[in-house]
């Protein structure tokens, strides 16, 4: 009989962009009490600022509005804007978090799982010259949305400027190039090292753009800074960066990031949405580089994973978890520092002088790192106890010797 613990079915979602909202709508429908926090004054995130998105037939604003109204219809979804996460304590199934809310008292919420959907930021690459004609995609979307475009005769899109563009930026280039070509019938050319078409129907978009007269040129091996371009507008693809505050948030939650600073350690075993801590999931652009289509898929699978974890009010504890021998533990804290899953704490319930390390069974992955590092061999992983391993290895060695 495996052990079980009771869990709280509530869920905290960090980020009120499309990923967070999609997850919240799904979880709201499943009857979870959802707390959605957003740093800005209103929900919507980046998608709300775009004029059009490839793969979406309606305008992103309308799509967003639809999703937000769906969300607001749920009585079991609490939304806090201008809110930030300050602190999260405890473990999967029974987290306790403090929220800081502008012009209001701090709020404390208890929840069983967390979905991180903090999205991305963009920055425009530095150009040597300053000119009104040099704009980025964010400006371009604004101009198109406000119909502020004067007559243009030639537009150049410059991609892969500092480094290879992200998929989402490359897709934006294809989409906007076609849009300008069709709307204004001006000359549109795209300078890039690699056209990125690795997504559903992206190749068709590229083909259509060429058929409509967008000119694509490869600039591999050419320093684009030395080129002389004559055009009304030079549109530069922005660099995609982890959303501001990603580092702090990863510290608060104890979750790892990849080498580029985005959420989720690049480990196939955590794919698609898991983190190094049980009960914390990632959704959307904060951990993958993809178009809207894939972002929606991703947010749903994150929400599903969270729902799956908490659906039955209980979670079963895996059989293979570490155990501390209280007699041997000297509370050196080696295990606490080395556990990648934040599954070790100090047992404060004991009297002073007799405190020991404590394994949080529900958060333990059974990886065995603490077991192998403990200097006084006070931790054993059930199923892999020292005696058992010695016996196994011993028998193996005997076999070799004989």
């Amino acid at each position, binding site marked *: 009989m495996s052990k079980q613990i009771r869990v709280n079915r509530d869920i905290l979602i960090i980020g009120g962009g499309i990923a967070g909202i999609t997850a919240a709508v799904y979880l709201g429908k499943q009857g979870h009490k959802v707390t959605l926090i957003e740093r800005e004054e209103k929900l919507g995130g980046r998608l709300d600022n775009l004029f059009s998105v490839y*793969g*979406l037939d309606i305008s992103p604003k309308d799509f967003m509005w639809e999703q937000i109204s769906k969300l607001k219809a749920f009585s079991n979804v609490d939304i806090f804007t201008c809110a930030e996460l300050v602190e999260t304590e405890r473990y999967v199934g029974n987290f306790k978090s403090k929220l800081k809310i502008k012009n209001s008292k701090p709020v404390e919420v208890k929840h069983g799982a967390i979905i991180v959907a903090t999205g991305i930021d963009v920055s425009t690459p530095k150009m040597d010259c300053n000119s009104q004609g040099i704009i980025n995609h964010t400006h371009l979307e604004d101009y198109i949305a406000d119909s502020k475009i004067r007559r243009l005769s030639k537009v150049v899109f410059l991609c892969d400027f500092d*480094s*290879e563009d*992200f*998929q989402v930026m*490359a897709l934006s280039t294809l989409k906007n190039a076609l849009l300008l070509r069709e709307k204004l019938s001006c000359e549109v050319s795209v300078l890039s090292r*690699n*056209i*990125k*078409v*690795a*997504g*559903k129907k*992206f*190749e*068709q978009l590229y*083909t259509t753009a060429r058929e409509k007269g967008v000119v694509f040129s*490869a600039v*591999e*091996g050419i320093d684009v800074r030395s080129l002389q371009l004559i055009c009304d507008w030079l549109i530069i693809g922005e660099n995609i960066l982890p959303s501001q505050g990603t580092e702090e948030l990863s510290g608060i939650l104890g979750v790892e990031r*990849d*080498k*580029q600073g*985005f959420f*989720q350690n*690049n*480990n*196939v*075993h955590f*794919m*698609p949405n898991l983190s190094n801590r049980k009960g914390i999931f990632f959704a959307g652009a904060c*951990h*993958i*580089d*993809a178009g809207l*289509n*894939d972002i*929606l*898929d*991703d947010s*749903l*699978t994150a929400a*599903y994973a969270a729902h799956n974890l908490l659906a039955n009010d209980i979670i079963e504890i895996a059989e293979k978890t570490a155990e501390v021998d209280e007699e041997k533990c000297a509370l050196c804290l080696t295990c606490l520092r080395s556990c990648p899953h934040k599954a070790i704490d100090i047992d404060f319930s004991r009297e002073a002088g007799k405190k020991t390390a404590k394994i949080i069974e529900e958060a333990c992955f059974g990886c065995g790192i603490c077991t192998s590092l403990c200097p006084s061999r006070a931790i054993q992983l059930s199923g892999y106890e020292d005696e058992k391993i010695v016996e196994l290895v011993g028998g193996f060695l005997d076999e070799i010797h004989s």
Partner: protein
Amino acid sequence: MKHKNVLVIGAGIAGLTSALEIADRGITVHLVEKNSSIGGHVQRFCCKAVDDVCTKCGACLLKDRIDRIKSHPNVKIYPDSYISDISKSKSKFSIQIKQNNKHTSVDVNAVIVATGFTPFDAKMKGRFGYGRIPYVFTGLDIEEHFKEKGEFRLLDDVPKRAAFIQCVGSRDEHLNKGYCSRVCCRYALRLVMMLREAFPEIKVDIFYMDIQSSGKEFNMLYDQCKNDSGIEFIKSIPTRAQEIPEIKSVRVLYEDVTKAKLVERDYNLLVLSIGIMPSEDSKMIEGLLGLNTDEFGFFEPVDNFSTRTNVQGVFLSGTCEGPKSISESIQHAEKAGLDVMGYL
């Protein structure tokens, strides 16, 4: 809730993932696989760690799923089986499963199509000499070889020069393959790094149209390849390859687009990065279920944002819907499982 049954067609990584997702929720899954073993194409893929460091190809994610599905009380596996007939009445499907000469009939409430893909047949691109020239292989051949042998021993001598040709069977309008297979750049660069590790002296040229360097940290692997003096990226797709038996080489003719000149180079090893085609069985499934397909033969969902199809109760999972990497397939399969649970 009355007890429900679901049919999953295809026991590759997508079919297994969807089946587990549903079976874990107490629903009986009938898993039909045409081959004698479950696991699909992924079981042919090798671990692509370079220098003992994981490059996140995901090939190792299969084994755990196979182990789980084999001991799952809610999953019934039918190896060596075909679907011979499907009839739909109201919200039920009755399925005839043909296993060798044995016929089984089951009633299910929903169907997940996870028929996967067929690797492009490199012989269709005759000018690269696959099957004729002994130094020409596909990326899949190399993977299988690494998987089986653990090292590279396809040639008698140590290869000094190797070349990879990308987009063989992808982004090719002559073959009506106007789509990107999404995975070839990723596996090719990983294989290139593996070859560089196995033979530090080897020089590798990569012929490409556009490197699809998207994916987590993949730009970093691409940069690593670009900074490697032993690897040259050539933006051009060669026109032909011919055997030069005297020097045990294959001679590749391509256009150097920066100089607008035709160039010939000799290689000891030529690898064709073949792409993903719709499964050869998808026509049959399409006929049985009456599913919509896109212009290339992949099954088409009703909208961009779900795995539902034009037939109510039928869902798509994995690469039968379009090219995907292993992790993308897993995610899509989980989504299919989710959609089915919502439907039941």
